[in-house]
């Protein structure tokens, strides 16, 4: 795996930039090899998942983990089975996950963008208090909040409904921090003053002028809240009883645990393929939007 990936990049080499110093530092083979070890560490488990998603349940037990099975190439039948097993509940979980991600991460990003902008661009009564409260609360581990939130929500009759997962996902302190630092430097205060002189309302200014400038920061926040929402396991685990409302994470673990229960069918091939499908979706979003979140994160780091 290392050789195939290193070769093409070696061939390309560095573009000759003459502007800089006279003696351009050359690439280091040793450094590249050492970093390749880290890349290998990152990739091997993913390769294991990909290879084993091509095996049948029997093939998993009879073949070497990091190589293909002699038996049938089962990737496509595994994918088909994943989506149809147990009356297609996986599709339902996928839909739930999308709902939680769109509503949760979308809502969290929206609130963080508004609040981050407000904190960065207005000087107002109570700003220091907002800062102190948010920073203080961030130190409280979210999972420590989950149990009391569950008890509260069960009194309010919200448990076992999608709201129980969506509402707590709406707050992302990290997203707020990111948007705050980003808005502080991406939006010229002069522009806002000029818009006010022209009589534009604050919201009109925000949506017409500021949002486009905030785009890289918004995409970054969206991706991090998406990961957080998709990663969420503890919250839906305690909030939801009905498998029909499970997100993928809780559902996949239920399939995995099924083998250990009396009379439960072992469907490890489906757990593996389902995991692969889950990862591919998220990775796809990350790679597609790479350019935006990297520039957004870089800008977020300037402030530190």
């Amino acid at each position, binding site marked *: 795996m290392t050789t195939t*990936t290193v070769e093409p990049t*070696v061939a390309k*080499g560095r573009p000759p930039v003459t502007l800089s110093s006279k003696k351009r530092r050359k690439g280091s083979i040793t*450094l*590249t090899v050492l970093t390749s070890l*880290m*890349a290998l*560490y*990152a990739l091997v*488990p993913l390769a*294991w*998942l990909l290879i084993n998603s091509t095996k049948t349940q029997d093939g*998993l037990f009879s073949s070497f*983990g990091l190589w293909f099975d002699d038996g049938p190439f089962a990737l496509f039948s595994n994918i088909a089975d994943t989506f149809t097993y147990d009356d297609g509940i996986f599709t339902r979980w996928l839909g739930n996950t999308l709902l939680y991600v769109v509503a949760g991460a979308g809502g969290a990003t929206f*609130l963080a963008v*508004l609040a981050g902008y*407000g*904190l960065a661009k207005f000087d*107002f*009564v109570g*700003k220091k208090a*907002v800062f102190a409260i948010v920073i203080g*609360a961030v*130190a*409280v*581990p979210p*999972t*420590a909040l989950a*149990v*009391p939130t569950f*008890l*509260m929500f069960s009194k309010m009759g919200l448990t076992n409904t999608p709201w129980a997962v969506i509402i707590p996902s*709406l*707050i992302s302190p990290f997203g707020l921090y990111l948007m705050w630092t980003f808005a502080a430097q991406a939006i010229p*205060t*002069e522009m806002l*003053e*000029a818009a006010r002189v022209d009589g534009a309302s*604050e*919201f009109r200014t925000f949506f017409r002028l500021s949002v486009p400038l905030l785009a890289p920061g918004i995409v970054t926040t969206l991706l991090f809240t998406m*990961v957080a929402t998709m*990663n969420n*396991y*503890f919250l839906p685990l*305690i909030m939801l009883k009905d498998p029909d409302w499970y997100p993928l*994470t809780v559902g996949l673990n239920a399939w*995995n*645990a099924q083998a*250990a229960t009396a009379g439960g069918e072992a469907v490890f091939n489906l757990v*593996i393929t389902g*995991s692969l499908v889950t*990862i591919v979706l*998220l990775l796809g979003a*990350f*790679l597609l939007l*790479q350019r935006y979140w990297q520039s957004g*994160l870089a800008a*977020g*780091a*300037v402030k530190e």
Partner: protein
Amino acid sequence: MAVPQLAAPPAVSPGGVRRKRRSYRAWQFVGPFMIVFALVFLAPIAYSIYLSLYRNRLIGGNAFVGLDNYRQALEDSQFWSAVGRVGLFLVVQVPIMLFLALLVALALDSGRLYGKSFFRVTIFLPYAVPAVVAALMWGFIYGSQFGLVGNLNDSLGWSLPDPLKPSLILASIGNIVTWEFIGYNMLIFYSALQVVPKSLYESAAIDGAGQFRIIRSIKLPAIRGALVIATIFSIIGSFQLFNEPAILRNLAPNAITTYFTPNFYAYSLTFSGQQFNYSAAVAVVMAVITMIVAYVVQLRGTKELG
């Protein structure tokens, strides 16, 4: 907040009134966040503290017991063994993970790496894998049934120890967490390194400073803020360890107890034991410990800066 030439304030109004009008405008933006924040952060914290002061008795129902639950928690050996376990995890896993992440970030930043963007994306990839999926996947790899460890032992005649046995389970979980978060921390460090003015390196090189000297004297001090932030996030993450042990428990029910981590303990108390009040006290104690440790790290991190 410099006043630009063109856009002078529209009217000469007394500062106080203007500030109040501004406040109203600002709260239109900050308000929605704070309302939801109050519902999902402040209310549960308050409710938790309230619950922790009561106890449900067979006779007499719900009674105010003051700090009894806290007293119980402080004497609870299961709770402290859980705290000790995440403490050990924190002391061993976090430095290894952050050190590796820093090495990769420095390698990326050195400009001497072939295929830089390939490495940046590849090493970041695991972060995009949900923790549950990562734990399931590594669980399979560790497993004795069709896991890689068993495979290697069978086909190469090795005798690798079972990663799921009680003495190794914490290290195995540490490996999963390290795998998940190296890329994320690397990206934080790398982003911070990118902002350091390159001219500093050039003048240091002219003064005869070697690569390691530049790293020690310029790069590391420059990204101290990022190092402190990453350390605090990692501390919070370690103290609330739950997903990985909860999922590996299917494979290793004997190695992972119901009080394996403080979080897992609070979960078991609530959902298996129905001890809501005591569980709330455990959660509060844990939150306080986390805050103290995070605060001390922050204080030390910023003090050395000055």
